[in-house]
């Protein structure tokens, strides 16, 4: 697959990144090279091998349904750039 500037633009928009045309072209070339390199894996025979979702062979890590003390509103809001009362404040969202 050839990565185009349009592909880069789409991914950038999803990630809320604003790129110049120059950057789009630059990244298209770089991403294309990375993907071409990964393509090499296709040379391996992976018949009968399940897709790996995790690198560590581990399963079923649970916690019991027990409540633990929360950190509290003040700590929760401590690093927020903006607040109103006990809420985080964000630019107006129109529903």
């Amino acid at each position, binding site marked *: 697959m050839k990565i185009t500037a349009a592909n880069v633009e*789409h991914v950038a*928009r*999803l990630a*809320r990144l604003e790129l110049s045309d120059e950057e789009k072209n630059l990244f298209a070339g770089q991403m294309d090279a990375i993907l071409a390199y990964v393509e090499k894996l296709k040379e391996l025979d992976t018949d009968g091998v399940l897709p790996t*979702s*995790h*690198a*560590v062979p*581990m*399963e*079923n*890590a*649970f*916690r*019991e*349904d*027990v*409540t*633990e003390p*929360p*950190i*509290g*509103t003040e700590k*929760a*809001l401590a690093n927020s750039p*903006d*607040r*109103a*009362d*006990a*809420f*985080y*404040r*964000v*630019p*107006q*969202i*129109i*529903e």
Partner: protein
Amino acid sequence: MKFQPVIGLEVHVQLKTNSKIFCGCSTAFGSSPNSQTCPVCLGLPGALPVLNKQVVEFAIKAGLSTNCSITPRSIFARKNYFYPDLPKGYQISQFEEPICQHGWLDIQVEGQDQKRIGITRIHMEEDAGKLVHGEIAGLEKGSGVDLNRACTPLLEVVSDPDLRTSDEAVAYLKQLHQIVTWLGISDGNMEEGSFRCDANVSVMPVGAAQFGTRAEIKNVNSFKFVKQAIEYEIQRQIDLIEDGGTVVQETRLFDPNSGTTRSMRGKEEAHDYRYFPDPDLVPLVIDPAWVERSRSELPELPEKKKQRFMESYSLPAYDADVLTATRALAEYYEECLALQTNPKAASNWIMGEVIRGLNDSGLPIEECPVTPRLLTDLLRLIEEGTISGKIAKKVFDEVWKSGKDPKTIVEEQGLVQVSDSSAIEAIIDDLLAREAGQVAEFRSGKDKLLGFFVGQVMKASKGKANPAVVNDLLLKKLKG
């Protein structure tokens, strides 16, 4: 052109756990904003989510109760999008390999044949936070974010696009709602958002091979609104197509005030979620033994119980339906039966006086002042002929108010039924002497007057005369 609507439903069921799905914060509703939070549900860097085992138990129970197969190995995925109520920038959900798949429910719309509705999948996920607008000091400009709800456990139940009418959609939803509340895995409170529905609606020409383009109607939060929203949306799409327009795939919001749906632009381009396995959460493996243990812990489900009530106690379908509306009501009825009462009489009283009393008082059945013990004691007094059915209603109200046992009330208030014929005869003689004109009319063939005489005797006895004895004696005297 005739159009065929096609409807699929996505239901979000909030699970009744103590703590959130990936952290130990409380799930209690109504706490002050952002007070029930920790690094995990705030999405702080480096925090590690760990799966609440109770969520898995609940999901398996939901799956088994909706005829799903339980996936032996399922994984969690990150669903990526930006919205201010989603602190991490992704929601932990399941994409490939959800925990339950390929189920179904049989629904019944009145006057129609039973219909099987497929369930594509049930998956576990975390809820987002809540956005607040206006009304709060400092929020005149901007919106507020409360993350108490973030990371609350949800099951998303996705139906196949098998529904064709708004009535079918409501029947399906009611049944699903009954099951999750019956299992005790959700409180099902629609006002508080514990049971939320999104509806995918499209229309196609009758006989077409391919579905039309669908619109997704978000967060319709009552059975009534679901019906309204779907009906409005079907008509909107038909009108649009007939006017030469085309339906666009979009998210629409239902407005309960106007009964209409409107486009929710803005959330649109986010539809590319770029799911990938969440490396923080290890795969979930459920072996057959676990599934079987879960199955053995399931309560008798409403449909089964209903059938059993009909077969074992010869109840009409209507009664069985009412009595299995909730698990608590069914258990109340079964407690009555355990006390050796007449099944149909108990059913009549529960459907009548008990439910009326609960509706009037707003009490749940668990807090009904007339316990199964008291109700069956009352029924016994009727059966034995100690009191009439009419007096029994009075006694029932007294039991409800005072909590005293029916026998005591009957004794204290002198409500014992009069079956002694000499006492009743005296009342009758007195009446017939006073109403000579009516007696003559009756004897000349106006049979309908019997009701009048019975009524008068009952009134004179303050309702205590045994109606059967009254009837017998009256007929004897009037005809004689």
